C-alpha cells in the first residue's frame, strides 16, 4: 500500500482543509488555513500552540498541550478551545517526520446556524466533503419540524380544550361508556342533572349504578348496539339521581372509534325531557279533562239543540195557530160574517190581514233559515213537470200582479220539460223571486218567468225577469244577506221580510245550485237560479204524477198518512199544509173540485180536506162524486165551510162528508179531528 501518492500545493490543501494548522516539534504554529486565520485572531504563525488553544478534556481541568501528551493520544479526537474566542475545533492529528511536524485536520464544532453566525462563518467556508454543513442543515430542519410539531400539539390541545369546554358547557348530558360498560367520561351537565360528580361516576358501571331499574334492559341493548357500530340509536332512559328525583333523558348513542377505526366506547348524548314529560302528563290530563268537559258540553249542546228544535217547533205551532185565527177571522169579517162593516172598519181589517200575512211569511222564512242553518232541512227529491211548478208559483203572485196591471208571462224551454228537485222548495224559491219582481215593478210593467235547460252543462235555469226599479251595482253584494232591503225608503214602500233572497240563496245551495243576478237601475232585474239537472230525468217525465196536472205532493215523511187538501186559496193551502206536515202528515194539494176528484183516484189519500167554495167544481159536487165510487167509501172526507154560508156544513154531510169544520179553522182542533177519523195517535 503506497497511498494516494498525491502532492498538494498549499492552496489545494487549504481548500480541502480550510481549518487545518501545522505545529513543529517545539509546539509552535508554523502554518494554518486561511479561514482559520480569519476567524481566529489568536493564531499567529510562529507563536506557541498553547497560546492559541487549550485542550478540552472531559472530567478534567483544561490541560496544557505538550508534545508527549499529543504523541501518547495521537489516535484520539482532540478538541481545542480557542484562547481568544468561543471557537472550538474538533481535530485529528497527523504526525509527519523529518522534520517532525504535527498536522491538525478538522473543522469548528458548531451545533446550530446561530453559532455559525457568531463565529463569522458561512457555509462556503467549509470544505465540500465536510458533513458539518449537512448536520447543520439537518439540525435546522429537525428543529423546524419540532417547532411544527409543537405548534400542532398546541393547536390540538386548543381544539381539545375547546371541545372539552363545549362538551362541558353543552346543555345536554354527554357521557362515554367503555367496552366494559363503565363510565369513562361524564360532563358537567350530567353532574348537575344527576347530582353525581364525574369523580363519583368514572369507573362505575353505568347501567347498574346510574340507570333506573325499569330502563336498565333497554340501555343494555342500546349500548350493545352502539358498541357494535350502530349510530344515533335513541332511547328514553330514567336515570337515578343523588336526591332520588325523577330524571327522564332521551339518549342518542353512537360508537367512538380509535385511530384505527376500532370501536372503543359508546358516546351518549342526551336531552333532559323530565319537564317535558311532566308537561306531557299534565297536558294529557288536561286533554282528558277537556274531553270530559267537551263531552258534557256536547251533551249540553245536544240538549240545547233539542230545546231549540222544540222551541222552533213550538213557535211554529203556537205562532201559526193564533195567526191562522187572526187571518181567518179577518177574512170572515171582510166577508161580512159578523155583519156589515163601514169603509173605515174594512180598511182597518184589511190592514190587520195584510200584517198577519206578512207576519206568517216572516215566521215561515225564519223557521226555514233556522232549519237550514241547523242542517235540519231535509230535501224531498221528486221529478215533476217544470211547467206545473212554474204555473203554481205564478198563481201565488197573480192577484197582486193583476192589481198592478203587470204583464205576467211564462216561457218554458222545451228541452227541459221536467225537473228533479225538491218541488216544494223550488216553488218556494220561485214564489220569493216572483213576489219581489211583482213588488218592485211599477204598474203596467212586466214580469217573466223563463226556464232554460243547458244540456251540455246539465243545468236547469229558472230566471225571473222584471222591468222594475233595478238594483245599483254597489248594492248587489249585500243583496243576499238576511234582513236586507237595499233602500230604507223601499222597505216602507214595499212590505217584505228582508229574508226572501237570503232564503232563496240557501235553498238553492242546499240543492247544489246557485243564484245570480243582473240588474240595472231603472231598467229591471234578472234573477237566475241554476240547479243541477240530469237528462235522465226526462225518462220519467210521464209518470203517475204527470196525470195530476195541477196536484203537487209535498211529503215530509214517507210513512205518514197522506192528506189531500182541496182549496183554491193559496194561503190556506200553505198554512194548513205546513201545519199538517209539521205533524207528520204527508200532504198533496188540489185547487178545485175536479182536481181533487182526479187526485183522489190516482193517489188514494188517507183523508180529504175539502173546501166548499171552489172554482170549476165546488166541494159539495166533488164529495158527491167521490162518494159515488164504492172503492173510496172508507176514505174520510172533512169539509171546510165558511161561516158566512149558513147550512153549508149540513149540505156537506148530506153529500157524503164525514165531518165539517168552519173557517177560520182551529189548526190544533183540525189535527185532532183528522187523527180521530184515521184512528191514529200523535207521533212518538
Amino acid at each position, binding site marked *: 500500500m503506497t497511498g494516494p501518492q498525491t502532492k498538494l500545493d498549499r492552496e489545494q490543501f487549504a481548500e480541502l482543509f480550510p481549518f487545518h494548522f501545522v505545529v513543529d516539534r517545539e509546539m509552535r504554529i508554523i502554518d494554518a488555513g486561511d479561514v482559520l486565520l480569519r476567524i481566529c485572531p489568536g493564531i499567529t504563525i510562529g507563536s506557541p500552540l498553547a497560546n492559541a488553544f487549550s485542550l478540552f478534556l472531559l472530567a478534567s481541568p483544561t490541560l496544557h498541550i505538550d508534545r508527549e501528551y499529543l504523541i501518547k493520544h495521537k489516535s484520539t479526537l482532540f478538541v481545542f478551545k480557542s484562547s481568544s474566542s468561543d471557537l472550538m475545533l474538533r481535530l485529528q492529528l497527523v504526525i509527519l517526520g523529518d522534520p517532525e511536524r504535527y498536522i491538525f485536520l478538522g473543522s469548528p464544532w458548531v451545533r*446550530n*446556524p*446561530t453559532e*455559525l*453566525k457568531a463565529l463569522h*462563518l*458561512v*457555509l*462556503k467556508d467549509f470544505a*465540500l466533503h465536510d458533513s458539518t*454543513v*449537512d448536520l*447543520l*442543515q*439537518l439540525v*435546522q*430542519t*429537525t428543529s*423546524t*419540524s419540532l*417547532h*411544527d*410539531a409543537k*405548534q*400542532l400539539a398546541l*393547536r*390540538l390541545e386548543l381544539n381539545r380544550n375547546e371541545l372539552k369546554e363545549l362538551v362541558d358547557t353543552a346543555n345536554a348530558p354527554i357521557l362515554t361508556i367503555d367496552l366494559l360498560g363503565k363510565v369513562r367520561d361524564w360532563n358537567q351537565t350530567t353532574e348537575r342533572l344527576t347530582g353525581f360528580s364525574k369523580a363519583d361516576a368514572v369507573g362505575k358501571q353505568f347501567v347498574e349504578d346510574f340507570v333506573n331499574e325499569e330502563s336498565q334492559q333497554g340501555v343494555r341493548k342500546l349500548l350493545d348496539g352502539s358498541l357494535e357500530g350502530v349510530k344515533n340509536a335513541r332511547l328514553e332512559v330514567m336515570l337515578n339521581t343523588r336526591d332520588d328525583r325523577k330524571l327522564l333523558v332521551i339518549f342518542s348513542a353512537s360508537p367512538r372509534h380509535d385511530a384505527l377505526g376500532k370501536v372503543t366506547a359508546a358516546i351518549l348524548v342526551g336531552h333532559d325531557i323530565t319537564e317535558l314529560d311532566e308537561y306531557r302528563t299534565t297536558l294529557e290530563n288536561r286533554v282528558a279533562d277537556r274531553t270530559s268537559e267537551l263531552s258534557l258540553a256536547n251533551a249540553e249542546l245536544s240538549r240545547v239543540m233539542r230545546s231549540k228544535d222544540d222551541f222552533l217547533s213550538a213557535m211554529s205551532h203556537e205562532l201559526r195557530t193564533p195567526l191562522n185565527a187572526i187571518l181567518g177571522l179577518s177574512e170572515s169579517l171582510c166577508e161580512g160574517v159578523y155583519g156589515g162593516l163601514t169603509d173605515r172598519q174594512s180598511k182597518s181589517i184589511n190592514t190587520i190581514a195584510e200584517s198577519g200575512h206578512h207576519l206568517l211569511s216572516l215566521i215561515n222564512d225564519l223557521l226555514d233559515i233556522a232549519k237550514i242553518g241547523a242542517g235540519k232541512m231535509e230535501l224531498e227529491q221528486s221529478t215533476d213537470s217544470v211547467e206545473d211548478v212554474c204555473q203554481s208559483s205564478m198563481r201565488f203572485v197573480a192577484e197582486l200582479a193583476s192589481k198592478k196591471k203587470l204583464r205576467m208571462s211564462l216561457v218554458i224551454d222545451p228541452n227541459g220539460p221536467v225537473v228533479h228537485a225538491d218541488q216544494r222548495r223550488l216553488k218556494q224559491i220561485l214564489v220569493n223571486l216572483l213576489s219581489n219582481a211583482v213588488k218592485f215593478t211599477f204598474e203596467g210593467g212586466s214580469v217573466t218567468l223563463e226556464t232554460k235547460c243547458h244540456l251540455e252543462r246539465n243545468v236547469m235555469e229558472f230566471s225571473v225577469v222584471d222591468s222594475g226599479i233595478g238594483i245599483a251595482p254597489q248594492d248587489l253584494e249585500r243583496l243576499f244577506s238576511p234582513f236586507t232591503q237595499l233602500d230604507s225608503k223601499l222597505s216602507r214602500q214595499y212590505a217584505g221580510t228582508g229574508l226572501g233572497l237570503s232564503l232563496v240563496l240557501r235553498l238553492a245551495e242546499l240543492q247544489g245550485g246557485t243564484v245570480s243576478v243582473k240588474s240595472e237601475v231603472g231598467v229591471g232585474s234578472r234573477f237566475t237560479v241554476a240547479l243541477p239537472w240530469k237528462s235522465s230525468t226526462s225518462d220519467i217525465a210521464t209518470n203517475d204524477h204527470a196525470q195530476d196536472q195541477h196536484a203537487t205532493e209535498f211529503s215530509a215523511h214517507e210513512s205518514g198518512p197522506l192528506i189531500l187538501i182541496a182549496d183554491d186559496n193559496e194561503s190556506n193551502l200553505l198554512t194548513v199544509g205546513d201545519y199538517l206536515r209539521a205533524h207528520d202528515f204527508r200532504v198533496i194539494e188540489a185547487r178545485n173540485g175536479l182536481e181533487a176528484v182526479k187526485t183522489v183516484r190516482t193517489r188514494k189519500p188517507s183523508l180529504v180536506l175539502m173546501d166548499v167554495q171552489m172554482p170549476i167544481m165546488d166541494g159539495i159536487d166533488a164529495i158527491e162524486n167521490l162518494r159515488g165510487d164504492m172503492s173510496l167509501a172508507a176514505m174520510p172526507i172533512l169539509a171546510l165551510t165558511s161561516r158566512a154560508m149558513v147550512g153549508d156544513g149540513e149540505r156537506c154531510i148530506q153529500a157524503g162528508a164525514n165531518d165539517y169544520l168552519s173557517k177560520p179553522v182551529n189548526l190544533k182542533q183540525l189535527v185532532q179531528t183528522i187523527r180521530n177519523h184515521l184512528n191514529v195517535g200523535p207521533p212518538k
Partner: protein
Amino acid sequence: MHGMINKSIEDLVTINFGADKWEAIKAKAGIKVEAFVSNESYPDEMTYGLVGAATEVLGLSVSQVLFAFGEFWVLHTANKGYGDLLKSAGRTMPEFLDYLPLFHTRVALIFPNLKPPRFECSDRHPDRITMHYFSPRPGLSAVVSGMLSGVAKLYETPAEITQTQFKDKGADHDEFLVCWGDSIKK
C-alpha cells in the same frame, strides 16, 4: 412536495388575506389537513390544488399567485424556517445564488423523498449570473422568478430577473438571467 411549501402558501394567504380566506381555499381544494408539517412530504396534487383554489378565491392569476409565493417563500418562510442557515449560504446575493445548487443537493440528501429541484449557475460575472432550473414539476417557473426576486430583497440588492428560456415552450429547462449593479444601470 415539501410540507414547508404548503405551510408557506397557508402563511401567505393568512397574513395577507385573512384566515377565513385560507379556510375557503382549503375547502375549495378539498384538503382536510389540519396543519402541515414543514419537513413532511405531501402529494404534489395537494399543492397544485391549493394554488388553483387560491387563484379562484383571491381573484388573482396563477402566475401572480406563484410569483407572490416565491417571494414570500424566501422572505418569510425560508427566512423563518432556516433563519441564520439561510443567510449563512452567502454573505452577498451572488454568493447565495452560487451556493444555491449545493444547498438543494444537501436538502436532497437529508430528505430523499422530497425530490427538490436542481439549480445550476453559469456565466458568472461581477454583475450578473445565469441560473438554470431543472424540475419534473410543470408550471412553477413563476415561483423561481419570485424566489430570485425575494433573494435580491433579502440581500437588499436591486436586481432584475428575466426568464430567458422556457421549459413550457419546448426547452429542456427554465433559465433566468439575474442582473444587478452595473448591468442594470446600462
